[in-house]
Structure formats: structure tokens, C-alpha cells
């Protein structure tokens, strides 16, 4: 008897199994053509066929070779469960099924000598979200009536830029009792409290990035919502840098400095200042790890924008030559505030960490007043590519850390001086307005979001390990790929339309939350209007516990 080849990879070792109904399949090939991971393919199977060739049943059998669709047991081509095969099959003949007995985390490193990588999100611990234990529980009634979300005007803008303590504002009083400003102050932009950020061209397909840019322009110019988007690390097309639309863009610089050669060259030709500069120190999904763009995604146009050859692009885990907070402050000061002649706010993005408050304190006490925003990203944030080990086993949630930073500012009477922007899985249940509102009550000036934007574009991934293949460049939705034939699966106009509609809906929902607490401007720090049904959460965040 033949020995079982137990050490060969089998499909039931993999995280997803293909469920195939041969009797329904017409062998049209749609699923194979659509599967970007090459996880399924045609195969010939020897089948016994029972038949009769007389008028009364006289069963006979014969063997014949039959074509079927089968899952490939190749480690590189494992099924990601994206479900595209099921979407394209006209006959419901194929689908993928989660394999609860997967041995993937063992067989992958055993076969390849490296840990698995993926894009997407934290998957290890999918649990109830902190924000979902919180409600808006202080409702204005009686003597302090609620507002009318439809009828009243609301001021839903948030600052980006360093805010000076009132006593240091350079005001002079004129003879007629007017205050005039007699010196320059740090630039502050009042923008929509939800920033789309910060996903690069490279991580995203050019069509996806273009869709976001279109949506942002439309929201600004047609809808009156001053929404900003952050470029991510990797620069932008020169044409955009030289256009008036640059004012809607926050340019990101991270440790790889990708794209900045082109940005610097474009500076003399810029007709508008960018909305801001965001210096990325860390990222919530993989704190302590640098950026990663696999060679597969470094297509020709990406090489042109970033000025690099086709290779894996790894941003170092830290900014080279930056070993202290003081230096980071200096670095910002020297390179960016000065580069844009102190007209553009410069903010910093860090991963939530046990040390976040120390970092924040150092920046808020910086005597040069040049840090114009503290962007705090949490463990539930997404990424274009990371090692599983980072995604699953490093990181820190952002809710309590945001609260800690705000309360640290309160303790020093410095709240609002460095606007706090929070992210990390916000809106992942689909309702960003609620998450944003609660984060604001806990002290955030605004929030930023990435993953939700991808979901709105049609991303098939989820928090239960589905797809999460952004790193491969084989995104079945055309969102995180640079393959022209895949990118064309995405309709940028439709995506832009989805984004615009979502923002308009969210804006109304924000008002629907502001109205009952009786506020017409954003409730920054109004933890008094939050309640929690979880005692531990209530205590930790210093909001009212209710039961």
C-alpha cells in the first residue's frame, strides 16, 4: 500500500477551502479567470460513470476523464476566501469556506522559512469594541432643549495646526478698541473632522487613489464639506502637486521619504499650499515596523512617482537620524515648517503605545509651538502590507490612549493646543459618525479613516481573515493592485460617488448626535455626555457608568 504523503501540502491545511458543485458547473471558466490568486484551476479527474444503453435499466459503468475546477494546494496560491469566484459564477457552483482546522500558521513558515504576511487588519482578537459599549446618554431636555438637526446650523469643523495659548496671541489693541495681530502665528486650518488617510499611491491602485481624490474635490467644491485626504507615504503625481487641488491634500512623509524628491522639485511650481504635512512616525496596525510595499506592486508608474527601481520598498522602522523627541521637533521645524515658509501646519502621526502620553507631553510642551497635530493610530487600523506577527501581536488600542492624551492636556491646561486626531478601526462596523462623535467627546478634535474608505470602494476583506491580500498586489477588487487588468475592475466614478454619499450621510448623522445633546459645535471633551454599560470601560475613560 502506498504510504500517505503526510508532509505534502493539502488543501485542508489552508485557511479556506473551495466548495465546488460539479453538477452545477458548466465549466465556463469565469471563476478561474476571476481568481487573482490562482487559487483554483482546471483539473482532470477520473470518474466512474454509471449508464445504461438499453430501454430497461441495465446499469453499466465505465471510467472517463472529466474536467473540474479544483483548489490548488500550492502554498503561494492559497485561497484567501475573497469570494470572487462565487460572485462571478452564474450557477452557484463554487464558493470558499473558512477552514476551522487550518494548519496554515504552521505549514507556511515550515515551507517558506518566513512568517506569513498580509495586508488588512488585526485579526487575532476580534471582540466587542469599546466604543460599542458607549452611548450618548446625556440628552438635552426641558430647560436645555435639544436642537433640530435639520433646522439649526452646525459648526462641524476641526482645527489642524498648532494653537497658541491665549496669553501668547500677538494682539495689539487699536485706539478704537479693536484687536489686531502684529506678528505671525502658526497656521491653523479648520477642516472637516474626518480626514481620509493615509494610503499611498502604491498601496492603492492609481484608480482607487484617483477615486478618493475625486470624491474629496467633489465634497469640497460641490458639497461645501472641507474634507482633506492624506497622501500616504509615496508622493503624488507631479500634475496634482502643481494643481489647485493640492490644497485638499495632506502630504505625508515617512521614514522612507518616498516621493519627496518629486515633491521638493514641484515646490516652486505649486500654486496652492498643501493642507498640511503629516510626519509618520508609527502606524497602529504594525507599530515599530516600517512601511512595506512589495515589489509586485512597484509598477512603472509607482517607480516614476517614488523615483525607485522595482524592488520591495521598505521604509525603515524609524526616521534615520532621529533619536529623540527633541530631534523630531527640530526636524519638523527645520525641514517642513521652514520649507513651506510657516504657512502649512505640520503634524505627527504615531502608533498608540504605552508611551503615547509621554510623547504627547513632550510635544505639547515644546516651546517652539510647531507641532500642529497629534495623529494617534490604534491597533485596529489597516495596512497595505505587514508581517502577520506584527499585525497580530503588536499594537495598542487607541480609545483609552486618546483619552489619556486628552486628560494629560487637561491636567496642564493645554487642551486644544495640539489638536488630537484619532484612528484605528474607527467606523469598521460601518458607522463612522458614531465612532467619531464618541472619540470627540473623549477629547479628539477629529478622526481619520482608511479601511472604511476601502470598504466603501468594494473591499472584500474583513476582520475575520477574509482576503486581506493587499500586500500581494492581486487585490480582487482592483483597490490595492497595480495590475492594469485588476485595477480596471474598479470604477473610480462609482467609488467616488459612494464616498461622497457616505460623507453626506455621515455629516447628517453627526448632526443627529449633536442635536440631542444641544450642541451646535463639536463636543470636544464632552465626556459628560457619554455613558457606558461596561464598568471597566467607564472607569478607565472617566465616563458615567450606567446599568
Amino acid at each position, binding site marked *: 500500500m502506498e504510504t500517505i504523503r503526510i508532509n505534502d501540502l493539502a488543501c485542508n491545511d489552508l485557511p479556506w477551502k473551495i466548495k465546488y458543485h460539479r453538477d452545477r458547473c458548466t465549466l465556463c471558466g469565469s471563476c478561474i479567470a476571476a481568481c487573482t490568486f490562482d487559487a483554483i484551476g482546471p483539473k482532470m479527474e477520473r470518474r466512474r460513470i454509471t449508464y445504461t444503453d438499453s430501454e430497461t435499466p441495465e446499469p453499466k459503468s465505465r471510467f472517463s476523464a472529466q474536467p473540474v475546477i479544483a483548489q490548488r494546494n500550492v502554498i503561494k496560491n492559497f485561497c484567501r476566501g475573497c469570494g470572487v469566484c462565487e460572485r462571478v459564477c452564474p450557477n452557484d457552483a463554487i464558493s470558499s469556506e473558512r477552514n476551522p482546522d487550518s494548519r496554515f500558521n504552521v505549514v507556511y513558515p515550515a515551507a517558506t522559512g518566513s512568517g506569513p504576511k498580509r495586508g488588512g487588519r488585526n485579526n487575532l482578537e476580534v471582540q466587542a469594541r469599546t466604543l460599542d459599549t458607549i452611548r450618548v446618554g446625556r440628552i438635552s431636555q426641558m430647560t436645555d432643549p435639544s436642537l433640530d438637526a435639520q433646522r439649526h446650523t452646525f459648526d462641524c469643523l476641526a482645527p489642524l495646526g498648532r494653537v497658541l495659548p491665549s496669553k501668547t496671541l500677538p494682539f495689539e489693541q487699536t485706539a478704537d478698541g479693536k484687536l489686531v495681530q502684529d506678528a505671525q502665528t502658526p497656521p491653523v486650518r479648520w477642516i472637516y473632522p474626518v480626514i481620509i488617510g493615509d494610503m499611498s499611491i502604491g498601496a492603492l491602485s492609481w484608480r482607487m487613489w484617483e477615486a478618493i481624490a475625486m470624491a474629496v474635490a467633489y465634497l469640497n467644491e460641490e458639497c461645501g464639506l472641507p474634507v482633506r485626504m492624506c497622501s500616504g507615504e509615496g508622493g503624488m503625481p507631479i500634475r496634482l502637486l502643481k494643481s489647485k487641488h493640492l490644497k485638499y491634500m495632506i502630504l505625508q512623509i515617512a521614514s522612507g521619504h518616498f516621493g519627496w524628491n518629486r515633491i521638493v522639485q514641484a515646490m516652486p511650481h505649486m500654486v496652492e499650499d498643501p493642507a498640511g504635512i503629516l510626519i509618520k512616525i508609527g502606524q497602529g496596525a504594525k507599530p515599530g515596523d516600517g512601511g512595506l510595499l512589495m515589489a509586485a506592486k512597484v509598477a512603472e508608474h509607482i517607480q516614476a512617482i517614488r523615483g525607485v527601481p522595482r524592488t520591495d520598498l521598505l521604509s525603515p522602522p524609524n526616521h534615520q537620524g532621529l533619536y529623540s523627541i527633541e530631534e523630531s521637533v527640530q526636524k519638523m521645524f527645520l525641514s517642513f515648517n521652514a520649507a513651506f515658509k510657516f504657512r502649512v501646519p505640520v503634524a505627527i502621526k504615531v502608533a498608540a503605545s504605552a508611551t503615547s502620553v509621554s510623547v504627547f507631553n513632550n510635544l505639547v510642551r515644546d516651546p517652539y509651538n510647531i507641532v500642529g497635530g497629534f495623529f494617534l493610530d490604534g491597533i485596529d487600523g489597516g495596512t497595505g502590507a505587514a508581517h502577520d506577527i506584527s499585525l497580530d501581536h503588536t499594537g495598542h488600542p487607541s480609545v483609552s490612549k486618546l483619552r489619556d492624551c486628552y486628560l494629560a492636556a487637561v491636567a496642564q*491646561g493645554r*487642551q486644544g493646543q495640539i489638536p488630537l486626531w484619532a484612528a484605528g478601526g474607527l467606523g469598521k462596523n460601518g458607522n463612522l459618525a458614531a465612532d467619531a462623535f464618541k472619540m470627540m467627546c473623549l477629547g479628539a478634535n477629529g478622526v481619520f479613516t482608511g479601511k472604511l474608505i476601502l470598504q466603501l470602494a468594494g473591499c472584500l476583506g474583513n476582520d475575520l481573515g477574509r482576503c486581506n491580500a493587499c500586500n500581494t498586489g492581486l487585490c480582487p477588487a482592483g483597490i490595492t493592485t497595480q495590475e492594469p487588468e485588476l485595477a480596471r475592475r474598479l470604477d473610480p466614478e462609482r467609488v467616488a460617488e459612494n464616498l461622497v454619499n457616505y460623507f453626506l450621510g455621515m455629516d447628517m448623522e453627526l448632526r443627529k448626535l449633536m442635536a440631542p445633546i*444641544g450642541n451646535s459645535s463639536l463636543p470636544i471633551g464632552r465626556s459628560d455626555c457619554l455613558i457606558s454599560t461596561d464598568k471597566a470601560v467607564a472607569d478607565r475613560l472617566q465616563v458615567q457608568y450606567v446599568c
Partner: protein
Amino acid sequence: MCRIGALKSRHYMHPSKALLLMQSQQKGHDNSGFAMVMQDLGGIFEDYKHLPTLSLACTDEGLKIAEDLLHAKGFRRVHQWVPEINPQPGLDIEAMPNYVFETFDYPKEYQDASDEEKGELLTDTRLELRAAMEEDEKGFAYSFWPDVITLKEIGDPRAIGTYFNLWEPNEDFTAKVITAQCRQNTNYAIVRYAAHPFFLQGYTALANGENTFYQKNKEFQSSLHRGYIGFESDSQCFLYSLHYVHKELGWPLPYYKHVITPLPFEDVVKREDQEQLKAMRQSLAHLEINGPNTIIGVLPDNTMFTCCDAKKLRPVVVGRDEDTVVISSEVCGVNEVLPERNWETDIYPNEREIVVIDDNLEVQRWKQ
């Protein structure tokens, strides 16, 4: 509900006018207390305008603590007035054993000090008095400032008036500016300090309404000035913001309105001074108020003003004749005090203005 009122006159007025003003609005408040601040004093205090008067309600023990403390600091008492009380059975009042209004001369080493230095001394002293008497509620030091008297009591305003003989006008106990309010704190605990008007370093404020930004106001103000304490009422925040903007920052009064009720962004961008207004909004975002309010304020030079929240959810009216201006939550109060005035000149302020009455009783309306 809260009702507030204020009187400013060319002539000295007896507080019975304030009682009258508030009495007619009785249906609008809950008869739970009465408080008033008198500024620009006449009668028996007229000769002591330049010296600080302590307004104190206390037990015997509290009185001793206060007098010892003031003595130790070198204050010398030059004048004292104890209101004649009229305790009748059935009066709805939770009176303290002693009500003392004492005027002091400054310690010797302060004789040549600037007004600023003297003011700081008075503030520190009042805060010390407050702290020293706090335990077991031995006493309440409401104000310690030149030319200012404060009275706050828990109970029915009519009964409080009777108890202190305030219904009978006389020439001894008068002022040109009186602000008054008839309600104890109903949002939070009943504490004597929680009754409006609130007073700090020459600034007085009282309000009708709710401060929905109480928590953020309070968190921010707590670190701005040592005198910003208590917060027994969310309306104290209005006083502290007024004091901070006008005294600490030295900004003219119109900017107070810009700080507490900033113009919407769509309006700010049309203004020439948009940069300044945005800078204020940014730096003092935590002093914004965003609930239904009407505020009445008095500045150290006895300028009186009123303004409302941006949604105009609380009423106020300003009525006047030749000699007196009255601000009141309800017009019936003005009718009571100035029945002969031309009511056609009454002002019902809108949500974007401050109505200001200067020392010549000139009434100005400042558009934000």
C-alpha cells in the same frame, strides 16, 4: 427655572427695588433662594468706597476664624454693618447665625501698593477665608472687594426680604448697581456659593440657562486662575470666562461675546478680522458656551451688559427711563420697577449682540 435681573441708576437704590423686580417674575422661578450683589455703594458705605468690604455669612466659630485670619494678615477693621434681622415664625429661610459686612483698611505694607497688588491680596485673602471656613460650613465669604456687597440666602425670596428687613426702603443701605437672582442651585447640590450672581475681582455675572459646555469650561478654567474654583453652578463658568477675557487677557468686552459664542465659520470668513476671530476661537475653544443662556455682567468700572447664547433660547429685556436702566428676564419685572417708562424703547437683545450700559446710562447695542 431661573430668573435674573439687574438695576443700574444715576441715584442710589435700596435693594427693595431688586426684590420688587424679581417678585413679579415669581412664577418663573422656584422661590428657592435669593442672592444679590450691590456695587457702587451709597448710604453707610459711601465713605468707604476705596476700602474692601467683606461679605460674610457664618457661624460664631466661622466669624472668629475670619477675624483672626484678617487680623493676622494686618487688615484693620474700619467699619462694620450687621443687618437687623427680623426672625418671624414661619419664614422660609435657612439662615446662618451671623451676617457680617465689614470694611477693612489694607495692611500697612500695602498702603502704597498698586490697585493690582491690592486686588491680588484681597483675592488671596478671600480664598484663604473660604478654605478656612469650609469644613463643617462654618462660613461663606462671598466677596471681599472695595465698594461691593454680596448677600446670598437659601429660602423664599419674600421671606428672605422680610428676614433682612429689605422690603423697607431706606437711605443707609443703597447702591447704584444691583444684580439679583431668585433661585438656589437646582442642577447640583444646594450650596450657598452656588447662587448667582458670582463675583470675582470687580466682575459680576449671573445667568439664566444651562451651560452644556460646563465640563470643558470647568476643566479648562481650573488651570487658568487660582480664583476659578468652586464650580458649584455651571453658570460660574460665565464669570470666569468674562474675568479671563477682559481682565487677564485685557481684551475689550466685545471679544467676550466672540469667545463664548463664536460666529459660525461661514460668517467668520466674511469678516475683515477673521484671522483674529479664528485665533480666539482656537485658543479659547474650551470657553465656548453652547447651551441656552442669557448672561448679565458687570465690569469693575460698573459698566453693565447683557448678552445671549447663539441660539437665543433664553429671554431678556432691557427697559429704561431717564435715571435707571433695568435688565430682566421678563418684562413684568421692568414694568414693576419702571411703570412710567416708554416701553417702546425696550430692547429685546438678539443672539448676536451685547447690550451695554455705561456709567452715563448710555445704552449701546454692539453687534457681534
